[in-house]
């Protein structure tokens, strides 16, 4: 039993990380008022770019993950152009981006031959003798670099949002763009910045999946994690640290599946795989039954802003 718990818990952070980074990235853009449904697509781009970057740079982890972030950032510029520049409905644009990315990554992955090519990926970085501590050793100290950085990164985003002028302006734009505009803040500029910054985090989440977790690229490998992240943001009431906790919850659920299999529990395989999606639905239902979720949203979420409309 103890072994089961230890193996399970030690696999959680790695599974939680993509959810955490993706939802924090979404929070950054949503707090600025932009509903970014394209997360699923951006994660795929990050995942493919990660593998591609790794292969092209002959095995550099840094290059791979940077490629993830940059590629997702570039694609998000397309989204930003549509949504901020051309005032396209954010839901339509988000969906289009997802399918664009799905098609594009599939195409590139096949044509370049990067599909299904196993890579060495990023190794675990056990922290010296700490990893030998009983119980908490393997759970906390035998992970890769990104997992160690996860909590500080989320905390840093939280801090920037709440305690800096940059975050202050971003929040103002998301709550009342007219007020921010009248105060002289550039609404389009802030939103574009938020979209790209958020996208880079989302891309990193995707890159982690391919470069660190699976150590290869398969078309569609994110399997809906982007959508779960969108739901997670609502569940976390747009707060980064709560998103982190939610991500651990989901990581925990996802980690349970292979553990149960290994433990010999005989459950229908595909129904087990369904659990993250059902869990997300359950969480959404539970939240809706409880308090007032929608009132926590940034007030101007999803609404495009134009200054010079006919009064």
């Amino acid at each position: 039993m103890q072994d089961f718990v230890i193996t399970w818990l030690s696999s959680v952070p790695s599974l939680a990380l993509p959810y955490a980074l993706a939802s924090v990235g979404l929070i950054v853009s949503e707090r600025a008022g932009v509903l970014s449904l394209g997360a699923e697509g951006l994660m795929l781009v990050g995942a493919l770019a990660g593998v591609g970057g790794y292969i092209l740079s002959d095995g550099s982890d840094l290059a791979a993950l940077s490629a993830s972030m940059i590629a997702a950032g570039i694609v998000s510029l397309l989204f930003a152009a549509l949504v901020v520049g051309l005032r396209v409905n954010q839901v339509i644009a988000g969906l289009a981006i997802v399918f664009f990315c799905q098609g594009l990554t599939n195409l590139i992955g096949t044509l370049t031959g990067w599909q299904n090519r196993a890579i060495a990926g990023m190794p675990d970085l056990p922290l010296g003798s700490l990893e030998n501590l009983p119980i908490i050793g393997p759970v906390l100290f035998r992970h890769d670099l990104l997992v160690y950085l996860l909590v500080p990164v989320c905390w840093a985003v939280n801090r920037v949002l709440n305690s800096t002028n940059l975050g202050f302006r971003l929040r103002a734009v998301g709550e009342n763009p007219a007020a921010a505009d009248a105060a002289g803040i550039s609404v389009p500029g802030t939103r574009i910045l938020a979209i790209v910054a958020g996208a880079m985090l989302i891309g990193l989440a995707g890159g982690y999946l391919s470069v660190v977790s699976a150590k290869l690229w398969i078309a569609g490998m994110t399997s809906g994690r982007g959508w779960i992240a969108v739901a997670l943001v609502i569940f976390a009431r747009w707060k980064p640290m709560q998103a982190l906790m939610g991500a651990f919850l989901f990581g925990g659920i996802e980690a349970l599946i292979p553990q149960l299999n290994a433990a010999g529990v005989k459950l229908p395989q595909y129904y087990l795989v369904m659990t993250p999606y059902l869990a997300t639905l359950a969480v959404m239902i539970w939240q809706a039954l409880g308090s007032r979720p929608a009132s926590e949203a940034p007030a101007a979420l999803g609404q495009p802003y134009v200054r010079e409309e006919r009064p």
Partner: protein
Amino acid sequence: MSGVRKSFGAFRALDDASLNIGWGEVHAILGENGAGKSTLMNVAAGLYSADAGSLVIDGQPCAFSGPRDAIAHGVGMIHQHFKLVNRFNAVENVMLASPRGSYRQGLAEVSRDIKRHADAIGFSVDLQQPVGMLSIAEQQRVEILKALVAGARILILDEPTAVLADDEAAKLLQTVQGLSRSGVAAVLITHKLRDVQKFADRVTVMRAGRTIATLDARTAPSDELTMLAVGSKIVPPIRRAHSSGIERLIVRGLSYGPSERPRLRQVSFSVREGEIYGIAGVGGNGQTELTDILAGVRKPTAGTIELAQPLGGHFDLTSGGPGDRRDSGFATVPADRQGQAIASSISVAENYAIAHVHEGKFGPWYFVSRASMRETAVSAIREADVQGVRSVFQRAGLLSGGNAQKLVMEREFSREPSIIVVHSPSRGLDVRACAAIHRRLLAARDDGVAVVLISEDLDEVLGLSDRIGVMTAGRIVAEFDAPADRQAIGRAMVGHV
């Protein structure tokens, strides 16, 4: 400002407008709704850029590239719809317009600056609460402080008293006068003659995008000002004495909202046939909720709405929906025209027809006839004198406020209702359209309809109502018979529960 022109598409909002304002003066801009007052000042505040014309401050020509630029030059504007972030508190909102180096430090600095200015002019504001929780008057004070802390020497106030009760308005305008004595140039955009005459030094009258004349505010006669603003004499409809019939609508103990902060508390009143019952009160005291409940769109948490039957007895309507209300003879005209009464992207004809479709007037369930809609709409538009309709199949969103309201009223009246509830019917309308609407309401009353008039415009309520109820904090705190004492009503409006 000189020779300013501005058009939105084909609509010319400003036509060669010019303005001359001195330091230390309170300068009013008087005009009807749609005259261009806000547009002109939005140009001054950097929110709009003019198509032509110039702006000169202290001899220096200025062309603002945006609101930040205007603020930097000392121009601050308090808009009719406050540009405040509800979730932030007062300090954060003020800091939006006056950014500081670091966030935390900035908050402390701004806090001090706010206190300094607030003490100087005698304001008191809660700095910690999210601004969305403050009263309208307090929110306005935050807006003013925001402009002052940002260094505004020219303060523009757009219809500041529209949302205030009489004595709050007086206090505000006195403060503005005080500010001007310290050197600030205050610009007061308003359509209220009384405010101009009591508080302004000079007044510029605008009409249809043009600046017509500039006069001394204290000495200019009311007639002349009205004539300049409206362009012709408008005779307001007169309410003739009229005997009303039996009680028709009885509202008892209506309550609504969560128990810690109810929006309506035990509201009770009754309206007779052939009577206009006016509900006066400053906006935000539960009027919208009451209208919605009467329309059947919201359900009260307690209380009843009853209709007296012609053959005796009462019919309890409380649990029905909007369809049931309409079937029982109710008609409602909500305040939010574009949001609740008109579907902007749908044609004028269909917007009118929807009131009758369900009774089969335009065809059976399997076929709705466009042709018959056109005929009906054309005659309705003629009846109600709705202007600006090139084709009844054009989008309803293209109608101006006044014409849209005329259409809505025609639609509601066409069903020959026995009870009409109107909420702020003349908000945003020019004097002519206003008079037309009022005429309509009085005619309905003379025909024996029970009319509930809910309005934040005290003049409107006083002019039309047979009986007046004053609504404060979700409760009817006092009732008066016409002719009513304005002072008494004003006192009741700000009385505490």
